[in-house]
């Protein structure tokens, strides 16, 4: 019974990691840039909806659409202005600067703007599916928001995995990241893929932030933590495969819940991080880092 409830709790936390891991992995695959602002888009989604709905008194559907539109437009503009200058200019930037630092800076910027707009308190978007927690198989409990979260994670991970595996444009997207110049030579507009996937993952993160916020709540600086967990889970998924990122996120979430339930609630996170670090050091190749090191 305890095990069952822990597994459910782990799956819900795990799907939070998983969605962000999928967003990080998919965009890294197309652009070779780590999106360390992915959590900040989630925060923007949650706090934006809360702001429009609760403070401004907009109807909920309009608040959601409005927030997502703002995120999409912002993502588009950021790509057109900053990433275009950084990556498409005459002196194309490569290496650790572009891989890490532009999105670091973006994360700072979004957090700063959110602080001005939304203040520093904890808020959440309203729950989308109201009601008591569901009871399954006797007395296992799962919150309704948790079901949505899990659903979102699985749908987005599977969707991207299928997209890359079975569609022509998915292959083209993959080629963009694998060999940018080569892809451009055969007529793939790599910049367009980078832009589209950036906007899609930003919006997806924002949607997920809205769905997930009733469980955890958000402040203007919650984004960084989420990005880090997404980054870590994406890492264990080999950084390039959305399917593996999804799986890695779920496994990490379950491991965290089990450690908390059976070993030590206080040191669950610490233990988890130590195990994760040991794994990278012991088996970098098996985890798929070899292919990712080119960054």
């Amino acid at each position, binding site marked *: 019974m305890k095990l069952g409830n822990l597994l459910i709790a782990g799956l819900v936390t795990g799907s939070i990691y998983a969605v962000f891991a999928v967003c990080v992995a998919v965009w890294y695959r197309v652009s070779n840039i780590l999106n360390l602002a992915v959590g900040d888009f989630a925060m923007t989604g949650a706090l934006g909806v809360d702001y429009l709905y609760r403070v401004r008194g907009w109807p909920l559907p309009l608040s959601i659409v409005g927030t997502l539109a703002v995120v999409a437009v912002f993502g588009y503009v950021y790509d057109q202005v900053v990433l275009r200058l950084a990556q498409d200019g005459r*002196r194309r930037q490569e290496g*650790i600067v572009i891989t890490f630092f532009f999105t*670091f800076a973006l994360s700072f*910027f979004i957090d*700063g703007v959110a*602080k001005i707009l939304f203040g520093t308190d904890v808020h959440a978007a309203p729950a989308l599916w109201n009601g008591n927690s569901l009871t399954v198989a006797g007395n296992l409990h799962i919150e309704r928001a948790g079901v949505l979260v899990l659903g979102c994670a699985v749908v987005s991970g599977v969707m991207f995995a299928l997209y890359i595996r079975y569609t022509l444009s998915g292959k083209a997207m993959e080629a963009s990241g694998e060999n940018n110049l080569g892809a451009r030579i055969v007529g793939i507009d790599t910049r367009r893929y980078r832009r589209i996937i950036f906007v899609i993952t930003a919006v997806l993160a924002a949607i997920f932030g809205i769905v997930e916020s009733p469980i955890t709540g958000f402040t203007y600086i919650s984004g960084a933590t989420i990005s880090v967990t997404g980054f870590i889970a994406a890492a264990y998924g080999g*950084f390039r495969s959305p399917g593996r990122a999804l799986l890695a996120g779920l496994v990490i979430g379950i491991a965290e819940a089990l450690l908390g339930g059976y070993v030590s609630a206080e040191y669950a996170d610490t233990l988890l991080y130590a195990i994760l*670090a040991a794994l990278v*050091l012991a088996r970098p190749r098996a985890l798929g880092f070899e292919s990712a*090191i080119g960054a």
Partner: protein
Amino acid sequence: MITLRPKTQARAALLSRQGSLGGTVATTGLVVVVGIAVMLLFGQQYAGSVIILAFTYAIVTAGMAVQIGFSQQIAFSQAVFMGLGAYGVALLNAHTGMSSLLAAPVVTVGSGLVALLLGSVVTRVSGLALAVATIMLPLLATGYVSSANYLGGSVGMPLTSNLWSGATPGATVVGDGIVTVAVLGIVVFAATRILSSDIGLELYVLGVDERTAAAMGVPTARRKLELFVLGSMFAGLGGAVYAGTQLFVPATLVSPTAELSLLMMLFVGGRRSILGAIVGALAIQYVSGASSWVSNNILVVEGVLITVVLLVDPEGLAGIAATLTARVRGRPAGRGVVADAVVAAEPGVPAEATAPAAGRQASDFGRTWADRAGGEDRPGAPLLECAGIDKDYGGLQVLDKVTLALPPRGIFGLCGPNGAGKSTLLGVIGGSISASGGQVLLGGADVTRMAPQQRFHLGVSRTFQAVHLIHGRSVLDNVAVSCLGAHRPGIAAGIVRSRLAEARGKAAEALDYLGMGGLSGQEVSGLTLESQRMVEFARAIAAKPRLLLLDEPTSGLSEPQRDRLKDVLRTVGEMTCVLLVEHDLTLVAQISQKIYVLATGGLVFEGTPDEFRQSEVVNSLLVGL
């Protein structure tokens, strides 16, 4: 035809500054004098405390410029070591009553020891694996510190002793400031010395291209560990100064956010410049305290600041400053060099490069080389023996029982269709690829299990199929990489003594020998492909190898260029053993003593050039008759 933009030039100037003691002293002196003046003038005002904090961070970021900027590897470890230093001082202060000033060196050594332990595990991986493994450090440390009561938990830990105890509070602040500046001065001196020494050149190459570094004898694993320890010691020292000046160690000092802001300072200032790292720390600290609007919206300001700076120049403020200086001065250093190079590189370099045999002082280089290469104690015995070399990747057999033996002198061709395993065989002989079976003997000694670095020191040198030069450094420095001697001393030896001038001297000899002396000062990315190949060739021969492995040296060269290279190779073949992988069969047949043909991993032919020309096997495989 070679027009370096001011930016490229400025970068070359920025990165390959002369390794003189004078320059180091000047940089250190500048930091110390300005720092002390600022302390005396503003020490007792609010600005003083901001500046002390900025200098404290600068101690850490100067170390990061060496550790991260040069190695091009992100390790999220500095905040944790800063915390280690700060909590260390606080603990010593609380439990033994040791003063902060005395505790600082103790915790710095302690940080070094911890870093040695941690680093020997962590630095085995690189790239994103290193980033992921080390991002756990601040997460772990935050979790640990916030529940450790003896460290004050999530609040933090107070201290009672300042770095400097003055008679009045004002004097204490100024004293603290001056001690901080002095510590920063020591750090700057050490870091600048290391970067401008031969070790600095090794670190640079290591950061840009680890494979080339290994092939040129740089002890890569050891240098990576040393970098980690050095950066961690500076961070520990910075933490000690933090504790001693702020009199409080907040738990947030070890948080991921603290780590990120340290990285921000480094990258805004310029990741590969010591002065830049200091300016970055000052700029961010100053901006945060500039006005109440800014400090309320610091995240927005920092986000915009770093985006703009990195868009303008990935080398940060230091890069921008260098570009501006170059513009203002109208590129003084560049002009002459560029003009020379145009003269030399246009029909050029290698026009002279045909001359080594007839060379003047050049013959010295040739003679000592011939002495070294020929000075083996087993007359008549082969230099290189490959016995039954196998290589498979999973189920794919790339090399199949390859056996060959080469004498100490002469040119030996290795031909074969694409995918025959030629480059793999070179890799196995050079050490960059490990054989699945068989033995490689060099002068009778088994080197099969040796790393490329060790084999380089035994006299195995190579070029790559695609040119692997170190962009951002001069031709001279590119060649000097292979002349750094035994590469034995530790990183700290760079502080005491630089062997860079020595190595550059040897590199100049090799360049003169090839008639390329005129190119020495050029930044390599501005060179033609032919010149780049010749620079790589010069790098390969500068250490006077006993065995020279050349991987398609003529690919991409024109007919006249090939002829010039052919003459150079003939001369070199009289001094040493050359194993030449090449698709130009005419050239191979003209200059080789013996030719080997590899097909799908196995040797299918070996013989003289005449036999090679007549062989049916060769014709069917390589000529398609």
